[in-house]
């Protein structure tokens, strides 16, 4: 295959960027998108040009490091697939492909296709955990969790923190990311003690860094793990409840 790439090159955060066009010839359809970039980089090095910087690591779609806009879509055209698992067979010979970094004010560009996603960690720091010091846990089977609950919590917990949801959102909102963690922990019995405090703290921290959700639904479509926007509804419900909950009565179920 032969393709034309238009790649965003930017030296550093404080320097202006630009698109640079590269002809990439003799590409195998069985290569992954990132392997295609590896090949291009090898050729650039041979020509004495600095290779394109991009984040990547596990190349199995689980670490969440990689992710670029491919023809305006986060992670490219294949649904439910991170950039590292997208293969060139999904493109046609002769295609022109535009490659950009995540577009979001909360994710400033560091270099070329690499962005700073540390705002995600701030949201987790605000309450994306269950406070249980090492050593203080009871026997695991003391807390039965209905299978449906465990499965749904898992569906939310599958988030890889790549940032595609933010990049896809016209508002640059991080509601799907935040909701995925809120739902994972708020659904489980272990997460009940901190449920209301967690929801308020995480939502309000999110609002400090990211835009606001207006229910476009682009995030769900872009998510490589197919995380449902139902979780955003759950988070919004819990956030509203959190504002009126009398926490001294937390141990009562209603």
């Amino acid at each position: 295959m032969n393709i034309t790439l238009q790649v965003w090159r930017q030296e550093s955060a404080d320097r202006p960027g630009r698109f640079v066009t590269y002809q990439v010839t003799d590409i195998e359809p069985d290569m992954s998108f990132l392997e295609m970039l590896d090949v291009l980089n090898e050729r650039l090095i041979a020509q004495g040009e600095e290779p394109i910087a991009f984040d990547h690591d596990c190349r199995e779609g689980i670490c969440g490091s990689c992710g670029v806009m491919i023809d305006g879509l986060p992670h490219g055209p294949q649904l439910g697939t991170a950039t590292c698992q997208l293969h060139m067979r999904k493109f046609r010979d002769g295609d022109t492909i535009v490659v950009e970094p995540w577009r979001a004010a909360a994710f400033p560009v560091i270099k070329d296709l690499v962005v700073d996603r540390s705002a995600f960690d701030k949201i987790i720091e605000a309450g994306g955990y269950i406070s249980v010091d090492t050593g203080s846990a009871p026997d695991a089977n003391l807390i039965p969790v209905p299978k449906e609950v465990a499965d749904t919590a898992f569906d939310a917990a599958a988030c890889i923190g790549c940032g595609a949801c933010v990049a896809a959102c016209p508002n640059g909102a991080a509601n799907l990311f935040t909701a995925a963690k809120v739902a994972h922990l708020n659904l489980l019995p272990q997460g009940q003690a901190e449920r209301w405090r967690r929801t308020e703290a995480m939502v309000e921290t999110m609002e400090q860094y990211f835009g606001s959700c207006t229910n476009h639904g682009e995030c769900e479509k872009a998510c490589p793990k197919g995380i449902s926007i139902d979780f955003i509804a759950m988070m919004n419900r819990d956030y509203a409840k959190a504002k009126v909950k009398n926490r001294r009565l937390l141990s009562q179920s209603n």
Partner: protein
Amino acid sequence: MTYTISSRQLDSKIPGGPLEDKWENHKFSIRLVNPNNKRKFKIIVVGTGLAGASAAATLGELGYNVEVFTFHDSPRRAHSIAAQGGINAAKNYHNDGDSVFRLFYDTIKGGDYRSREANVYRLADVSLNIIDQCTAQGVPFAREYGGYLDNRSFGGAQVSRTFYARGQTGQQLLLGAYQALLRQVAAGTVKLHRRTEMLDLVVKDGRAVGIVTRDLISGEIRSHSAHAVVLATGGYANVFFLSTNAMASNVTAAWRAHRRGAAFANPCFTQIHPTCIPQSDEFQSKLTLMSESLRNDGRIWVPKRADDNRPPDQIPEEDRDYYLERMYPAFGNLVPRDVASRAAKRMVDAGKGVGPLKNGVYLDFSHAIERLGIDVIADRYGNLFEMYERITDENPYKVPMRIYPAPHYTMGGLWVDYNLMTTIPGLYALGEANFSDHGANRLGASALMQGLADGYFILPYTIGDYLADFLGDPVVPTDDPAFREVEDEVRGRISGYLNTGGTRSVDWFHRELGKILWDHCGMSRNEEGLKKALAEIPALYEEFKRDVRVLGTNESLNQSLEKAGRVDDFFELAQLMCLDALHREESAGGHFREEYQTEEGEALRRDDLFAYVAAWEWTGNPQAPALIKEPLEFEYVTPSTRSYK
């Protein structure tokens, strides 16, 4: 390359008393640091995988003053995240006869009797606490309809003791540890350094006193001082270039510590995982693992006849060889990894390989689908099947998967004593970075167990015993000459790479190095091949030093520069691996020397000569390391020839 025998002795500090009481006795006899004094001690933790994140979080909870370093953009990216299948624990929730002793026994046996009894028993013992801790953190382990935890079986065991979270157990456990870590970051007990890579260790008066790092964005070289340094920097399987490790996984932190005096143990014990997707072309950047859990329901086979080119659905049952079931009827498809890998290699070497490059064997789910229905199989392995299809464009519900072994995990690593301290006082190594618990072969679902055991439940106790001596002592200031000298060396190395001005990329050298190692120090090894590798690697290394091309500057994000340092260290490690493999004239676990095999082609251990840990000391001359032998004694398990028949 030759070696000398070191005059030094290693003290593994194994406590006395009966096996089951050693850890309890030890915890009581070692010194503690009073809760109010803990904040006076500064501890550096390098790496945020399962071991590093769990250690940093737990040390923070205890009140220590912790600084944690990751070269990723977030601690959550560490490669523990990619572990699929599960985590072992001797809970015996399924009433099938499991016990701490059985898990201990299986692990010692699975490791082919090349690990320490006391360490392994402790690992099996704390496995119970790990599951409790992770469940309380909200790790969404698989559950049965009654709401209780489910288990699956893994290779090398005849009980069902593996806890799992679909095919993403590592992810969920790591996120649990990451969340616990960020909770401490928010509480101010842990300071987190992102995109910061440790490039060297600083030793003063024989003790580890800090590290030198490079900020991967600004290029700033900086010193960090502490009372103790903990390395949780993972394994070195990427020395093979093609492996299932993440692209950035490397040996630099451990190797730099080795060069500063930490002995490196059993480097030749590397694990080749039997179920990976075969290589498809020359450009491949890494290999993808398919969880071992697939062997619960998948059946492995090849055509009986070599060069049988029929598609799998046209090969009738009588022309198929379900070779693992035939050779090992008791364990069948669930034999340990090293056994399964070598069997696959024998099939492919005999011309029975399948797929376009004839470099794989089939892993077939058609019988399981018939027996259990497609929904059950999808529930168990759905995400793995999807991943396989994304990569190969083949649907495993309809066509058998093709798999082949690939480098995956390294049992060798920094030598540590029972307290997880290396031979440098004040320097600890956890998780895959140390050599401690898996002997010559690791059982599936035991890496997650060990990383979390070390980080949550072992190091946080044992480190106090070392720190207790230094109460009231300030850390060594970072303007001390000890730090300045190391910083200068680091700067010198970096400018060396940038100024070489050669013609070939770092990746080119890495790939060539990987080919040599895979051919001669991979799934099977022999004297001739190892000697050849020991001649070829130094030649390639010289070429690397002369001809590598690293463009750009130090003062910005420069991924080629990062790789150059890592590959440089892989070159030195690769030579030690081959030397270790050459000196170990026996076959044990993942180390298969062709000269030492039974008539049936199984590994032949030589306990009379090699029942020891080979700990290698840096002598200053990479061509002449010194060997220290730590004898292994077996009081509770009698080493026997492993049989999975």
